[in-house]
């Protein structure tokens, strides 16, 4: 790539492609797991059989967001949305829609078919309040073809930066946009770049944190799967801004599709000269290497990540010195998260003011959330900062399934906290979330209903941190273990109120004395559930009851003698022979033998078995 003109030529050619229909099939992890590769195969066969190769283009895209309804298929130009597509539906769709021109209404996403005409996707509840900046291309382009990315204006921002801006101007734009790190802590991105730019060195590094370890979060994975080039372009821009010629992407090995698409993207960018030496004939050189994480949550911490890239145990290092001065291989380094990078090219092209016009006073732009748990529309959503949790859960997410009551939403993963119903109307941004005892985190948003036990959830996160603590510093290594032991006692009904005091004391010690953010934030799930759901802890400790009916040691299954018909089904189902009774007589559960597996309750046709 010797000049911007060459890039624009590729873009014009990409736009010229004219097939009548463009069928987008989601090739993200969610839809791949629910069978989209088989859909693509069948679709290809049917299109060949009908001689439609010229008229129909099949595009395997990244994630559309509505993972709960996968596999998903969208037919453009109209944008007709087929959800939960089955292989056997394909011949009908090809015959009726792609040949006949009439969409198969019964297979469309239900919400789009309620009016007289088929609703465009943007008008459905799930998409209406979303605003896609970081996910702009996800589901729109084929991530395995660089021409498609260039066709939507890709690499134009890199061209603009290299040919018309000084490094200092680039940093100023990023700073003025108000962009803050999307990995969790929310540090101003431009400031990070400025620090690294100011330090002289023979080599500097640009790193991308794609080690998305927060269990239940898949924002970064979706960007990498759906639009890998945006990350490469942004890293090259960052390289120019701070004076680095080498970048590294540290990506989870558990994301095979993302890794494969990144490999393809890097190869294609090198072939076109968008990575490598003398990019756009400007003398600027930049290349990117891929490093696979190996399943250690602590490697999401910046110094641990760099230690891991260097080929060591991924243990964090004390700061200072900060990575901007001594990072990877002891050279000045910046590390940004995938979603942060995904915003950069748009900020360069549309300007800092455009970006700063979205969001709240101190949190600009949009945020991607991975919505999961007890929610109807599980999936990926991108909303302007300042959107309320209620809008996300009730409108976009479609509420809690099975008529259950919303109890809390968990953000920030093992470092974050739970937001109770009373705070549903707080506009979400970095500072508001911290004020109510949670944190933005990378964007996992798990909804919990009345059947979720908050003590059990706190225990779940502590089990996670105990597993993932690297063991380097004592407060984290020993402290998380002691906290987990107390939580286990509580869920077994063996704890006293004194234990609760000890638990709170441990929270303070860990937060104050741990070496890195993993240990410092490990108590957060406990602190926040104690803040809002202290009564549940008390119920476990004093009354020896689990109000949500989750903690098995505090549960008893019982049979309501008035409802029991004596059909013996439960007694035959019970794996422990704990149920006794004669035919047509009310049965009873022998509590000493009962394993509390719940099989009897599931099988009973008369609703006679309950737990308390």
């Amino acid at each position, binding site marked *: 790539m010797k000049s911007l003109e060459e890039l624009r030529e590729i873009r014009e050619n990409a736009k010229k492609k004219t097939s009548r229909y463009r069928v987008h099939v989601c090739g993200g992890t969610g839809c791949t797991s629910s069978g989209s590769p088989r859909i693509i195969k069948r679709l290809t066969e049917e299109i060949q059989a009908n001689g439609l190769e010229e008229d129909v283009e099949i595009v395997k895209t990244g994630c559309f967001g509505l993972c709960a309804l996968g596999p998903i298929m969208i037919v453009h130009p109209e944008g007709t949305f087929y959800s939960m597509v089955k292989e056997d539906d394909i011949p009908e769709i090809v015959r009726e829609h792609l040949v006949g021109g009439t969409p198969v209404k019964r297979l469309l996403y239900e919400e789009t078919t309620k009016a007289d005409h088929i609703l465009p996707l943007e008008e459905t509840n799930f998409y209406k309040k979303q605003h896609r900046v970081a996910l702009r291309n996800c589901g729109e382009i084929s991530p395995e073809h660089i021409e498609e990315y260039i066709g939507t204006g890709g690499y134009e921002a890199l061209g603009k930066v290299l040919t018309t801006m000084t490094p200092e101007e680039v940093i100023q734009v990023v700073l003025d946009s108000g962009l803050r790190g999307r990995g969790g802590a929310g540090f101003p991105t431009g400031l990070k770049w400025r620090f690294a730019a100011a330090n002289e060195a023979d080599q500097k590094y640009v790193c991308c944190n794609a080690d998305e370890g927060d269990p239940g979060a898949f924002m970064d994975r979706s960007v990498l799967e759906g639009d890998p080039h945006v990350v490469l372009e942004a890293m090259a821009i960052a390289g120019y801004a701070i004076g680095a010629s080498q970048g590294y992407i540290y990506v989870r090995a558990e994301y095979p599709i993302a890794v494969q698409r990144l490999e393809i993207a890097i190869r294609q960018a090198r072939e076109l000269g968008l990575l490598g030496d003398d990019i756009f004939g400007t003398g600027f050189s930049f290349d990117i290497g891929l490093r696979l994480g190996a399943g*250690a949550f602590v490697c999401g911490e910046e110094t641990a990540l760099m230690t891991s890239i260097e080929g060591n145990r991924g243990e964090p290092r004390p700061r200072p010195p900060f990575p901007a001065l001594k990072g990877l*291989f002891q050279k000045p380094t910046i590390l940004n998260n995938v979603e942060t990078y995904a915003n950069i090219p748009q900020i360069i092209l549309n300007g800092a003011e455009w970006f700063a016009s979205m969001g709240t006073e101190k949190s600009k732009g949009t945020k991607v959330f991975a919505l999961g748990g007890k929610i109807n529309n*599980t999936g990926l959503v991108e909303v302007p900062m300042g959107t309320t949790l209620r809008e996300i859960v009730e409108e976009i997410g479609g509420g809690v399934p099975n008529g259950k009551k919303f109890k809390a939403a968990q953000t920030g993963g093992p470092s974050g906290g739970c937001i109770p119903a009373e705070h549903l109307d707080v506009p979400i941004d970095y500072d508001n979330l911290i004020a109510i005892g949670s944190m933005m985190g990378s964007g996992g948003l798990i909804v919990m209903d009345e059947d979720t036990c908050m003590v059990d959830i706190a225990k779940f996160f502590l089990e996670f941190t105990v597993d993932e603590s690297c063991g380097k510093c004592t407060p984290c290594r020993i402290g998380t273990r002691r906290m987990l032991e107390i939580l286990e006692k509580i869920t077994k009904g063996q704890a006293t109120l004194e234990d609760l005091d000890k638990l709170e004391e441990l929270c303070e010690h860990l937060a104050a004395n741990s070496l890195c953010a993993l240990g410092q934030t490990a108590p957060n799930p406990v602190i926040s559930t104690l803040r809002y759901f202290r009564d549940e802890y008390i119920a476990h400790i004093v009354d020896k009851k689990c109000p949500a009916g989750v903690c098995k040691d505090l549960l008893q299954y019982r049979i309501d003698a008035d409802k029991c018909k004596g059909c013996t089904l439960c007694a035959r189902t019970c794996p422990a022979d704990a149920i006794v009774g004669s035919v047509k007589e009310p049965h009873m559960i022998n509590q000493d033998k009962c394993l509390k597996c719940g099989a009897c309750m599931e099988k009973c046709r008369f609703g006679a078995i309950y737990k308390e």
Partner: protein
Amino acid sequence: MSEKKQTVPFSGTKEQEQALREVIAGHKDEPGALMPVLQKAQEIYGYLPIEVQKMISDQMGIPMEKIYGVATFYSQFNLNPKGRYRISVCLGTACYVKGSGDIYNALMEKLGIVGGECTPDGKFSLDACRCVGACGLAPVMMINDEVYGRLTVDDIDDILAKYE
């Protein structure tokens, strides 16, 4: 991380050793090459027995204690062989609140092993993993590369039977 005593004798072939030598040669003089080499070695052998770690140590000139340290730090590296069918149950938050903990417990009971172990016949191994990324299908487990979603405890027998 696996600290259990190695019970299966090492049976590497000449071809595997040759493939490993090529991988190491391909990463010569590259800073931080140990992780990619260990990852490739595990691809070649299926796990990282001490014998393989020794070969890497000799050929890369990296002390054994460092290699062992790295190999035991990351959960992806296995010091013991896995089953022919590797079961991993997602215990990410989204799956956990939807009951994957019950699935995991039921599998341990049915297979008679705990997480991290392999059945004595070498058929199934069981592990917990953190987020496959298919949260829309929660609760989820994987057997080798096949994903099973929207699971209930009742589904387990039928699924395991497929691998008999």
